[in-house]
């Protein structure tokens, strides 16, 4: 296959298995985000791809060449580190052309490439500055330019935005994505920020406890989570525990309809997830399971409101975009919530253990 592929990759640190049997394909020119909570093994996986860690088992292939045991300095993979890892004893330009200088590129060519990359990351005129004289955002740009200087086959970024403030992070996510699309480099970004992953990635790999939980496009991951962990980790969800009865879901004395019908044996314990923006309040025109509810709390978030409800199946949050419904809800108000059948995700009970 053309691109990068991982087959049965695992990594043990002593008795601890940090990464478990990972099979992944990264298509040429695609941006993939490895997303998961801290300690889920995503950085270890990235380091194995970079050649900074040797896998305990499995194979890494680039364009069908086995590179599993190839040391990092022979892979031509550009990498941006969490702390950027810039060389403080070198100027901005010297940092950027480092890979070219050590590979013996003619000085004039290296300098020309340096200027082009400085221009690319919008740091023209900063070439002679010391690294210590740059802001966080500028340092990140230098780290990106430096990693791109060797024209890498694969571009790896380990939590590249974590050192930036919230506003700059949002801007850099868009900038980085545009740059990656322009250059068309196969890119893998490690992040624990789902918003960052959704903004930048063509494909998201959700990881937990060393395992891949789901691989898919941002929309797939959000709207069609394959298990309770993904439903919980990506976006927000209301969770209920119930059992399957004759193709329906029973939670306490309430029966809910789902589409498609849950594919579980009668009596199976299940966990049900429902995104908070999907239920409707006081809407007769919407199909779905109707439940009486009492408003327990109203949280105004500016562009949206969270209505906290107490229902027969448990507490629930319904998110309303401002202006979508002008009705004002007060604490203690009685209402009817409709759960659309296609908005309920049903998972086996054992997957519910997070």
């Amino acid at each position, binding site marked *: 296959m053309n691109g990068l592929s991982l087959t049965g990759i695992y990594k043990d640190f002593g008795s601890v298995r940090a990464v478990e049997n990972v099979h992944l394909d990264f298509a040429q020119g695609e941006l993939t985000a490895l997303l998961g909570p801290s300690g889920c093994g995503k950085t270890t996986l990235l380091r194995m791809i*970079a050649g900074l860690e040797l896998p305990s088992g499995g194979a890494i292939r680039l364009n069908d060449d086995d590179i599993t045991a190839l040391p990092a300095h022979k*892979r*031509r993979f550009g990498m941006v580190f969490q702390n950027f890892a810039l060389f403080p004893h070198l100027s901005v330009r010297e940092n950027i052309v480092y890979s070219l200088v*050590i*590979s013996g590129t003619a000085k004039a060519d290296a300098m020309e490439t340096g200027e082009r990359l400085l221009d690319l990351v919008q740091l023209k005129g900063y070439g002679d500055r010391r690294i210590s004289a740059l802001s966080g955002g500028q340092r990140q740009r230098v780290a990106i330019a430096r990693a791109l200087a060797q024209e890498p086959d694969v571009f790896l970024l380990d939590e590249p935005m974590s050192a930036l403030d919230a506003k700059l992070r949002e801007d850099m996510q868009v900038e980085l994505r545009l740059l990656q699309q322009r250059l068309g480099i196969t890119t893998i970004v490690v992040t624990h920020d789902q918003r960052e992953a959704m903004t930048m990635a063509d494909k998201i790999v959700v990881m937990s406890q060393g395992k891949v939980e789901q691989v898919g496009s941002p929309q797939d991951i959000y709207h069609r989570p394959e298990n309770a962990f993904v439903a919980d980790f990506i976006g927000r969800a209301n969770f209920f525990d119930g059992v399957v009865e004759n193709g329906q879901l029973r939670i306490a004395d309430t029966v809910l309809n789902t589409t498609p019908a849950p594919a579980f044996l009668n009596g199976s314990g299940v966990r049900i997830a429902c995104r908070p923006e999907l239920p409707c309040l006081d809407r007769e025109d919407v199909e779905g399971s109707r439940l009486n509810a009492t408003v327990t709390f109203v949280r105004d978030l500016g562009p949206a409101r969270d209505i906290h409800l107490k229902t027969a199946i448990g507490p629930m949050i319904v998110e309303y975009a401002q202006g979508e419904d002008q009705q004002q809800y007060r604490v203690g108000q009685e209402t009817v919530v409709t759960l659309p059948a296609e908005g309920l995700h049903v998972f086996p009970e054992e997957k519910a253990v997070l």
Partner: protein
Amino acid sequence: MSVISDLDAVAQPPNTTRSEARKWANPQVLIWAVVLFLCLTPFILIFAVSFGHKVEGAGWVWGFSFANYQRVFVGAEWPDQVTWLYLQRLYYSLYYAVIAAVLAVVTAFPFTYLMTGLSRRAQSAWLVFLLSSLSLSEVFIVMGWDVLLSNRSGLPMVFKETGLTDWLKAVGWFDVLREWGLANPRNVKFKTSVLATVLTMSYLVWPYAVILLYPPLSRLDRSMVEAAHTMGAGPWTVMRTVVLPAMRLPLVGTILLLFVFLLGVYVAVTVFAEPAKQTMSVSVYGAVRGNTLNAPFGAAQAIVLLVTAAIFLVLGQWMNRRTAS
């Protein structure tokens, strides 16, 4: 007492004598005074003694003459005759100290770098071992090296018994060793030689080199090394282009510190250096406590040694700053 008299008392200017007394009673001032006294007094005394002169058959007397300094730089018979004996000793002091300090740092650096990559427990074990080795006195260490390098029981004997000497003779390297003063007609010999002196001096300060280099190396951002690897740099290139430049300040600082320490080494030089290649510290001891018993001349040599060390420190720092800028 009335309120008015109270106010009068408050309005009176503070008692200057009492406030001065309080100032001197301040613990910080006292501590500084004691520290300065303890640090400066020996130096001032030696400086003052260096201008005195020896009384033949007796001790010495205070005075103000540059004769001792003259003797150090151009000899006692100047201007009729110029001798460089003591400048030569100063030269050997610098020669041994520079080579031994650089050798210690050059060998301690890779060791310390590798050590910082070990587990915490292994690092602690090494550090405890190295710290405990510091408890060995110079005399003890020199005695050990003396045995190790002695012609009859040390390495030369091993060379002879294992046939290494014959092999060296066969391949023609034995003659080279003889030219370097590291062999006699029969076997290799390490005593007395510059090699033995420098090796022992280097060994003396090696644990210090590790202990001084350990903190900056353990603080070195390893992601810089990894970043260099991902940009195509092999281990040696990373060492040359990333680690060494990042460690330039600690390296220079360690060399300077060891150099100053080694200027004062006495026992190792006495045992391993040829009489013609002895250092100024041996000469100082000889003047103060040895056969000549000429304390003012010893003091003058000590001052010259001290000033030389200070000049080297200033030069080293200046060069370091210049390179950094």
